[in-house]
C-alpha cells in the first residue's frame, strides 16, 4: 500500500467526446491513498464517464492518467483491475445463480492441481476478507436469494479479492435503506483506514458530508472544485453543483385536506413479473388537498402497486377507486377518463415516445381536444405544444424536436406538462426527480405543491427519502408488498421511516434498537 496521504491517482486534463457531445472537458482529479473522495455533480455532469475513463471502459481523447506516479493507458477493465483499480457499478454485474464465493472468485479463481477450482480456499479467503472489513456474508449463499444491500457487499468483496487499492463506488447508496447506508459507510471507513482509496460517486449531499474526506464537484464535464469536506455545507455544495443557490426544501403551507377521497385502494393484491406476490392486500387512500408520499426501498412492490392503479397491470384481488370510479382493473383509458394524471418513472419506455416529436408526446391523451371527427388538428396541437414548452420552461425544445434530444429534467417537464394540463383531480408522480438535475427538481416540487393547494390529491412515490419528506403531508411505507405504516409527516422522522423501510417493524423491540449493528444478520 502506498504511503497514506500521497497521491495514488492523478488524472490531468482529461477530455472525452462522444461524437459532437463533449462529455468531459479538461477535468483534473487527484486521489490520495487512504481517503474517501466524493465525486458529486448533477446527473449528466460526467461523473460516471470520468470514472469509466479511469477504469479503462472508455478511451480518453486527451489528458493523462498517472497511477502511483506511472503514466497509464488501460485498454480495458482487465488492465485496470490488474493495476489495482476496482469498480462497484451502479447496476450489479453478478451471476445470480452462483454462490457468493463463486461470484467473488469468478475470473480470478484459486486453483489446485489439474486446474481444479480450490473451493475451500475460495470460500475461506472470501469469508476472511469479508470479516476484516465488516462485510459479513455467507460464502455459500446463492446470490439471487440475497437482498440488494448484500449483493453490493459481494461486488465490493469481488474488487477486494482482486487486491483493489483504489475502489470506485458508483451511486452505491441509491438502492440502500438508511441503515444499510450507514453500514456501508462504516465499511468504507475501514477500507480507507487500511490505506485503500475510495472514490464515492453520488448526488446525495448529506451522505457526502457524512462520510468523505475530500469532495470534488463536477459540473458540465469539468471538475470545478476540490476541497476538504470539513466546513463545507450542503447548500454550498448544491450551489456549486448547479451554479446557483437552490432551495433544498420546498416552502409549503400546512395541508388542508378535505374528506373527499380521490384515490382509494382496497385490499389490492398483485403478482409480480417473476410470479411472486408483489403487493399483498394494500389499502390506503389519498384525499383532495394533500400530498401522500410512498416510501420504500426499491423492489418492495411500489412499482407493481402503481402499475395496478394506473391500469398497466391487472391485480388479482382488491379494488381501486379513482375519483369515485371503482373497479378491480381500469384500463389506462378508463382511469384517465375517471380523473387520473400519472407521471411514470420510466420516461423512456412508458411516459414518452423518445423517437416522436415533442408535440406528439404532448398530445397523447389530449386527442379529443384536437380532433374534428376523425380528422386530427395537428397545427392546433403544435400551437398548444409551443405554449406548454414556454409555460413549463422545457429547455431546448420546440414543438417538432424529438423527445430523445432533451435532457432527463426537460423530458420530465414534458411529462408534467402533458399530465397536469388534463384538468384531472388526482395526480400520481412516480420518482418525479429521478435523473433530474437540482434546478429542475425544485421546479417540479413547486408544481406538485401547487397542485395540492388547488385542491387536487397528489400521490408521490420516491426512493429518495429527502424527496418524500420535503413533499409529503402523509407518508406511507411499503415493505415486501405490505403497506406497513401510515404516518403524519410532521410526527415522524427519517430514522423511523428508514427503520420501517428496512422491515424492522417485524422485530418486537425494533423501536429500541439504537444501532444498526445490533440487527440480526440478514445473511441467508
Amino acid at each position, binding site marked *: 500500500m502506498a504511503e497514506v496521504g500521497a497521491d495514488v491517482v492523478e488524472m490531468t486534463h482529461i477530455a472525452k467526446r462522444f461524437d459532437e457531445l463533449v462529455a468531459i472537458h479538461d477535468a483534473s482529479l487527484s486521489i490520495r491513498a487512504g481517503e474517501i473522495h466524493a465525486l458529486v455533480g448533477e446527473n449528466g455532469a460526467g461523473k460516471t464517464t470520468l470514472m469509466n475513463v479511469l477504469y479503462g471502459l472508455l478511451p480518453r481523447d486527451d489528458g493523462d492518467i498517472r497511477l502511483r506516479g506511472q503514466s497509464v493507458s488501460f485498454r480495458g477493465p482487465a488492465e485496470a483491475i490488474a493495476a489495482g483499480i476496482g469498480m462497484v457499478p451502479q447496476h450489479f454485474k453478478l451471476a445470480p445463480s452462483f454462490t457468493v464465493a463463486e461470484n467473488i472468485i469468478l475470473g480470478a479463481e484459486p486453483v489446485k492441481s489439474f486446474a481444479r477450482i480450490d473451493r475451500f480456499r475460495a470460500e475461506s479467503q472470501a469469508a476472511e476478507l469479508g470479516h476484516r472489513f465488516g462485510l459479513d456474508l455467507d460464502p455459500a449463499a446463492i446470490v439471487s436469494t440475497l437482498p440488494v444491500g448484500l449483493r453490493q457487499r459481494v461486488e465490493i468483496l469481488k474488487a477486494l479479492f482482486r487486491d483493489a487499492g483504489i475502489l470506485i463506488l458508483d451511486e452505491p447508496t441509491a438502492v440502500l435503506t438508511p441503515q444499510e447506508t450507514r453500514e456501508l459507510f462504516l465499511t468504507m471507513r475501514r477500507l480507507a483506514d487500511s490505506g485503500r482509496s475510495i472514490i464515492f460517486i453520488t448526488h446525495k449531499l448529506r451522505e457526502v458530508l457524512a462520510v468523505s474526506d475530500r469532495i470534488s464537484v463536477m459540473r458540465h464535464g469539468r471538475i470545478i472544485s476540490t476541497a476538504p469536506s470539513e466546513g463545507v455545507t450542503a447548500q454550498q455544495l448544491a450551489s456549486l453543483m448547479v451554479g446557483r443557490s437552490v432551495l433544498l426544501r420546498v416552502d409549503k403551507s400546512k395541508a388542508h385536506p378535505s374528506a373527499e377521497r380521490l384515490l382509494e385502494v382496497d385490499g389490492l393484491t398483485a403478482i409480480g*413479473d417473476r410470479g411472486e406476490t408483489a403487493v399483498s392486500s394494500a389499502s390506503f387512500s389519498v384525499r383532495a388537498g394533500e400530498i401522500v408520499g410512498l416510501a420504500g426501498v426499491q423492489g418492495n412492490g411500489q412499482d407493481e402497486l402503481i402499475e395496478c392503479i394506473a391500469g398497466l397491470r391487472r391485480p388479482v384481488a382488491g379494488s381501486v377507486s379513482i375519483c369515485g370510479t371503482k373497479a378491480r382493473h381500469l384500463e*389506462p383509458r378508463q382511469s384517465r377518463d375517471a380523473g387520473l394524471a400519472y407521471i411514470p418513472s420510466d420516461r423512456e419506455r412508458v411516459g414518452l415516445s423518445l423517437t416522436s416529436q415533442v408535440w406528439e408526446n404532448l*398530445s*397523447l391523451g389530449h386527442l379529443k381536444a384536437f380532433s374534428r371527427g376523425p380528422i386530427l388538428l395537428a397545427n392546433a396541437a403544435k400551437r398548444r405544444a409551443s405554449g406548454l414548452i414556454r409555460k413549463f420552461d422545457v429547455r431546448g425544445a420546440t414543438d417538432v424536436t424529438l423527445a430523445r434530444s432533451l435532457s432527463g429534467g426537460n423530458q420530465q417537464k414534458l411529462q408534467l406538462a402533458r399530465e397536469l394540463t388534463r384538468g384531472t383531480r388526482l395526480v400520481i408522480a412516480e420518482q418525479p426527480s429521478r435523473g433530474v438535475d437540482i434546478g429542475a427538481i425544485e421546479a417540479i416540487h413547486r408544481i406538485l405543491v401547487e397542485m395540492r393547494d388547488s385542491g387536487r390529491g397528489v400521490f408521490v412515490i420516491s426512493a429518495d427519502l429527502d424527496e418524500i419528506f420535503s413533499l409529503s403531508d402523509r407518508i406511507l411505507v411499503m415493505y415486501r408488498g405490505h403497506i406497513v405504516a401510515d404516518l403524519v409527516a410532521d410526527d415522524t422522522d427519517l430514522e423511523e421511516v428508514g427503520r420501517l423501510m428496512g422491515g424492522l417493524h417485524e422485530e418486537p423491540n425494533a423501536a429500541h434498537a439504537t444501532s444498526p449493528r445490533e440487527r440480526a444478520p440478514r445473511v441467508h
Partner: protein
Amino acid sequence: MSIEAAATWTSFTLAVFARSLLAPVAAVGIAIVAGGVLVAAVGQNPFQVYAILIKGGLVGWPNLSVALQLTTPLIFTGLAVAMSFRAGLWNIGAEGQMLMGALAAGIVGYAAPSPTILHIPLCIAAAFVGGALWASVPAVLRVYLGVNELVVCLMMNPIALLLTGYVAARALKAPGPTNKLPDILDTAVLPTFSLFSQLNAGIFIALACCAIVAFFNHATVRGFEWKIIGLNPRFAHYGGIAVRRNALAVFLASGGVAGLAGSEQVLGVYKAFYDNFSPGYGFDGIAVAMLAKNSPIGVILAAFLLGALNAGSGILQMETGVSKYLVQVLQFIIVLVLAAEFSFSWLGNRRRPPARSAATEKDPMTEPSG
C-alpha cells in the same frame, strides 16, 4: 408565426427531409457500384449494362409501359408492408395475402355476373377481404397470444401458394391444360391502355390508395395513434390508446391492401386467376417499404425504381446475355444496405454510455388486458 420562425421551421423540415432521403439514396448508390463491380467481374462493361438497363426500363412508351405494369403490384404490396411496419407490426406475408386476394377476385370475377359498374368494385372488395382474412391468422395470433408474426407470416405464404394452386388445379379448374380458374367475365376486366404491355387502370387504384393512406397517416387521429403504437406501444397503451384493437385493424388493413395487388393482377393483367402467377411481388413489397421508409409517397417512387429495373432486365438479357437476375442482385444489395443501416443505428444506441437498468420488457399488445 413570424417570418424568421417560419424560415427556421422550413429549413428544419428540409433538413429532416434530406436526412430521410440519405439512407435510401445511399443504398441505391452502393448497390449500383457493387453491381457494376459484379458486371465487370463477368467481363462486361458496367456502363454499357447500366445504359441498357435504363433504356430498357424508361426510354420509349413500350418500355415505360412495361415498367409501369411491373410497378403497379409493387405499389400495393409495398404500401401494405409499409402500413404494418409503420405501426410496428412485421407483416411480411403480403405474398400470401396477395394470392388469396387474387383468388377471391378470380372467383367473383367469373362466378358472379353483374353490371360492370358493380362487378369491378365487387371483385376488388372480395380481394381486399381475401387478403384481410389471410392476414387475420398472424394478426390474431400476434395481438392476442403474442406469437411472433414474422414466423407465422412466413409460413402462411407457401400455404397460400399451395392452397390457391389446389383450387386452380383441382377444385375450380377451368377446362384445358393450364392450371387456372375460368376467365373472368368481360364486366370485371380493368381496362388496359397500352398495346405493348398489360398496364391497366389498376395503377390509378394503386396511386389512389397511396394518396388515401398518406392522408390517413398525416391528418387523422387514427393515423396518429397507429404511428405512436409503432414507435412505442407501451407509451400508446399508457396514454389510453386501445393498442390491441388498433394493432388488429392495422394488420387486417395491411393484408387487405396486399390482397388488392391480387385483384389488379387478375382483373387487369391475366383476366383470370392463374396458379403461381406471382414472381414474388409480395416479397419485393418488403424491399419497397424499406426503401420508402414506410412513406406512402415513397412507396410509389421505390416501386417504380424496382419496376423499371425489372422491365430493363428483360431487355438486358436479350441484348447482352447478362442474366436478368443481375437486377435481383441489385435489389438484394439495396435491402442489405438498408438492413445494415437499421442494425447500425441499433448498435449505435447500444454503444452509448450505459443508461439506467432496463425494467422488464412488457408488450402491451399481449398484456392480459384491453
